[in-house]
């Protein structure tokens, strides 16, 4: 049995099958990115052992497939086993050995990277002159409580990882005079201020109210029909409503006059018109183009439109509060389905209850959408909030100057560059560095890349910059691995080429007879 297993593990057939599965996996994992986004597809297909079909998957997703880890480990085992079994040193085989050794290095390196690398961002969004000593996670959030600054002027911050919040654990900090109970959590949410919802609701309710008065009486019908002629869309709605009461006349004004005079039909026509125009308004509120959703007013309109069309009532002056304390009093927070697209991002929220010796101090809602909120406990003011997880560095970077060049007469970026002042107090180091595309800064085990660049209105047109910060202790392995594989393949290729070119051959078309079957 074990001999058969050994034979299986060392066989070239297994290699070929694994390579085939790998090719397929890479293909499927690439296709999956279209639906799932790069991050999710990577986790599901490449950083996993098995991939199972889920509800809502595209038709091509198989019921079950081998994940990247399974294939990576299997290839590794197959490769090592085959070498243990067949290893023999000849000059001819040096190429193959080197190639495979390099592949092993690459596979292991990728695993190390997977386990230990971390990507984050340094956002200088206040513009030139801003100094930062930390970077922020792209997705992971943390719940933070900041105490008042102590005698040395530094504030004490206690943070809880997003994972703990998500699992709704009871959170305790040794420096905190209270415990935190998480009562609600969602991966993605929408936060709307009462002000924006009120504005949108008033707008919609007023519009709906006008509808009532506009079509309040039969006499108004011909006048409104006349007005509708000015607008193709409205004229079309009129034509449909008239059709519903049996008027097929193209001249909607004449038809409206006829119906207005007919007491049996005018009521129905008014009702038809009201329903149709109402549906149109609600539709307009809900169908906001995705590009405009960055605007809170637009999101509020969508929210209001959806609430009313689903039969709920909205009272602009008595909107529901997300939480009885803090910013939640003046905001509506709704859980949203998680998003997975390339450029989409989830923003979680949590409802937390603060408990002092078992007694509730109140409930707050926290989310990266909201600012830090003040909480008074025993006469001390704490700030509580949720933000992207921060990684502090023992040195700081100050954005001195941004350079953003485009090619003349176009928007094609030619050069992005951030001039930074690096300051490391502990080492007594202060120097200026330039970070640009293809020119990262490697410092303190981290690498800083130019990621984005902009210019913001609120900072008076100051240049802003975002750096990507990567910590990857295994960054050297791919370089080594690649060098070894390339060397091996070159060896092998040249060895064959020399042997091949030194043999003469000249078969010609038609040079021999076709062999009969």
């Amino acid at each position, binding site marked *: 049995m074990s001999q058969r297993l050994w034979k299986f593990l060392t066989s*070239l057939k297994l*290699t*070929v099958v694994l*390579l*085939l599965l790998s*090719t397929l996996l*890479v*293909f499927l*994992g*690439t296709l999956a*990115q*279209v*639906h799932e986004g*790069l991050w999710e*597809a*990577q986790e599901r297909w490449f950083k996993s052992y098995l991939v199972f079909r889920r509800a809502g998957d*595209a038709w091509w997703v198989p019921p079950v497939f081998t994940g990247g880890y399974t294939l990576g480990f299997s290839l590794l085992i197959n490769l090592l086993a085959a070498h243990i079994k067949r290893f023999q040193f000849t000059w001819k085989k040096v190429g193959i050995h080197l190639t495979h050794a390099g592949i092993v290095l690459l596979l292991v*390196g*990728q695993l190390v*990277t997977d386990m230990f690398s971390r*990507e984050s961002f340094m956002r200088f969004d206040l513009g030139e002159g801003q100094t930062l000593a930390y970077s922020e996670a792209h997705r992971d959030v943390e719940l933070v409580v900041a105490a008042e600054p102590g005698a040395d002027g530094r504030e004490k911050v206690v943070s809880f990882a997003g994972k703990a919040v998500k699992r709704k654990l009871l959170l305790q900090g040794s420096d905190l005079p209270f415990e935190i109970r998480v009562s609600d959590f969602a991966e993605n949410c929408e936060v709307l201020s009462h002000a924006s919802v009120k504005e949108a609701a008033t707008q919609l309710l007023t519009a709906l109210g006008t509808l009532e008065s506009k079509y309040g009486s039969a006499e108004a019908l011909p006048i409104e029909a006349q007005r509708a002629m000015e607008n193709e869309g409205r004229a079309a709605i009129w034509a449909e409503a008239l059709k519903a009461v049996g008027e097929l006349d193209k001249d909607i004004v004449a038809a409206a006059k006829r119906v207005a005079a007919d007491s049996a039909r005018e009521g129905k026509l008014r009702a038809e018109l009201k329903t149709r125009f109402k549906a149109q308004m609600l539709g307009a509120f809900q169908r906001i183009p*995705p*590009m405009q959703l960055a605007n809170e007013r637009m999101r509020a309109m969508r929210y209001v439109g959806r609430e009313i069309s689903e039969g709920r009532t909205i009272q602009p002056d008595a909107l529901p509060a997300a939480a009885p304390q803090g910013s939640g009093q003046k905001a509506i927070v709704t859980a949203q389905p998680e998003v997975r697209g390339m450029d989409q991002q989830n923003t979680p929220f949590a409802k937390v209850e603060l408990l002092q010796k078992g007694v509730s101090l109140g409930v707050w809602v926290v989310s990266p959408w909201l600012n830090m909120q003040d909480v008074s406990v025993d006469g001390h003011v704490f700030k509580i909030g949720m933000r992207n997880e921060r990684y502090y560095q023992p040195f700081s970077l100050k954005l001195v100057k941004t350079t953003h060049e485009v*090619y*003349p*007469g*176009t928007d*094609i*970026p*030619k*050069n992005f560059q951030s001039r930074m002042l690096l300051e490391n107090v502990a080492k007594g180091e202060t120097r200026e560095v330039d970070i640009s*595309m*293809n020119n990262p800064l490697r410092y303190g085990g981290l690498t800083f*890349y130019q990621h984005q660049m902009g210019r913001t209105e609120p900072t008076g047109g100051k240049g802003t910059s975002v750096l990507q*910060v*990567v910590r*990857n202790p295994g*960054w050297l392995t*791919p*370089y080594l691995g*690649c060098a070894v*594989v*390339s060397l091996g*393949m*070159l060896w092998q*290729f040249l060895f*064959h*080429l020399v042997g091949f*070119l030194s043999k003469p*051959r*000249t*078969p*010609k*078309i*038609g040079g*021999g007879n*076709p*062999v*009969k*079957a």
Partner: protein
Amino acid sequence: MKKHLPLLIALACVAWIFSAWRTPSDKPGILAANAFARLPLIANGRVQPLDSLARNTLLQIREKQTVNTAPWQGGARTLSAAEWLLEMFFQQELADTRPVFRILHTDVKGLLGLPLDADEAHQTDGKHFSWNQISPKLGEVRDEARRASGVEESARSPYDRAILQLWNSVGQYMRLQNTVQPQNAKNWERDLQVFVEAVPAGREAAKAQQAGQPHDGQALEKLITELQRASVMKEINPPLVIPPAHPGAGVAGWTRTDEALFQIARGEEVPGALRAYASMGTAFRAGDVVGFGAAVERYREQLAPNGHEILKKGEREQVFNHLEPFYKAIVLYVFAGLCVLVYTLAPERLAWLRETGRLVTLVTLGIHSAGLIYRMVLEGRPPVTNLYSSAVFIGWGACVLGLLLERVWKNGIGILVSSSAGFMTLIIAHNLAQSGDTMEMMRAVLDTNFWLATHVVVVTLGYSATFVAGLLAVLYVVLGVFTRVLTQEMSKSLVKMVYGIVCFAALFSFIGTVLGGIWADQSWGRFWGWDAKENGALMIVLWNALFLHARWGGIVRERGLMGLAIAGNIVTAWSWFGVNMLGIGLHSYGFMSAAFTWLMLFVGSQAALIGFALLPPRFWRSGSAA
């Protein structure tokens, strides 16, 4: 005679190529369109001759570099790109009657109220329409384009894409018409003079008004009215035609006509270029051939002291446009391929045809390489900078590999590979060129000649080699299944060729992919990010590795190996083109753009060939040679 025939034919091909390798000149007594088209400007962020601007715009809106003035009837006059540009610049009411907007989508024609089919009475062939024919409904096109651009790219319908394409064409068209004068100016030289003369009084009035003193309201009003035209031009963002007044300002010192007008209004001098183009316009409209030529010449002389390099660049690129090296290569590849195909009918008697094919392929490789190098010099870049140049380069690499194979085996197969690969890739490149300027500037992240020269070149050679292996396998299957040509000997040699080429492909695609990883690590901080394009390259590496291991393990035999090599074509095509389409809506599955259709056809054909490869030997006409 037969002995020298191949050489004579090859020399004739060389002569044909060199006949076009010169600066195009204008015959005396004919309008100096060529001299005009050599003039430099800045478009797409780079210095180029007017000739390139005209050709690229036409390619985008009409899918051709020339204009048929009346496609609904035979024998109509054809305008060269330069001649068309002259009308676009200086005689716009005439240009507006030229059917240059290519519109195929029925619903778009419906929206514009255009005839669906050829209709002589309405002066249309049903595919090409003039500005005058589409302009009445431009408002509708704009509204639809706005709506379509709000739709996520992947969810756009063919109609949405057609509308956006048309809207882009309209923009291109208006940009040209606003380049050297405001659109529809009937006598720009006079208008310009009026404007220049209105400036001093207008400025006085403006100053007085600002100081709260009595001022000449009429003079101010006049200046403002004149400047409104310039404001409209500014919105359209035309190319930059006014060179900097001070030498040393470089490319960044160029300005647009509208900017120049605003500068004049601020009291600066009238740039020579502005007046030069205006006087060219007057001469052109008057049909004054001599005056026009003199105006062009005067402007060149004006530019010469400071802009010698730029004039030279314009001239060089015009020579390149005129030479059309890749078009000539396409023709010669076909010719060489046909020679070898005929040769295979009777190899013993027609040996001279193989030799002809070989020499012509060598000549073609020469012109192919010349085109490639010419582009590199013009751009100051390594050979591959975008999809277009990757097609040109893949063809070039395949052609070299084919000729190397021919050197070893001398049986025509290598030539067949060279000519067919060269032909197909250049046809693909030709179609890719329709999306606009193929020498566009590189975005900041790609702006590194080191990585473009190493990673991109090596990985593209990997594509070339994988395609060549696939092509050889296709030959194997086609010759084996459908003809009696595939002898045992030949079958063996083909299998060896495929194996050798796959080794080469594995080496290059691996090193190329790895270099890409290192570049990614240098610029984004991760060696591997499972990005679609990276994955495509990885699939080629994996596939080549699979082929090699399957052969070493003796797991598949000759026909199986050929099937694997053909499947390599699919993998490579996916990596080269397929991944680029993911963003444009593979997941809407209804998506059918021309390129996607072709990709699917290619994949289908290759799958069918794999099917043939797997047929048992008794179905092969060449018998069990395989």
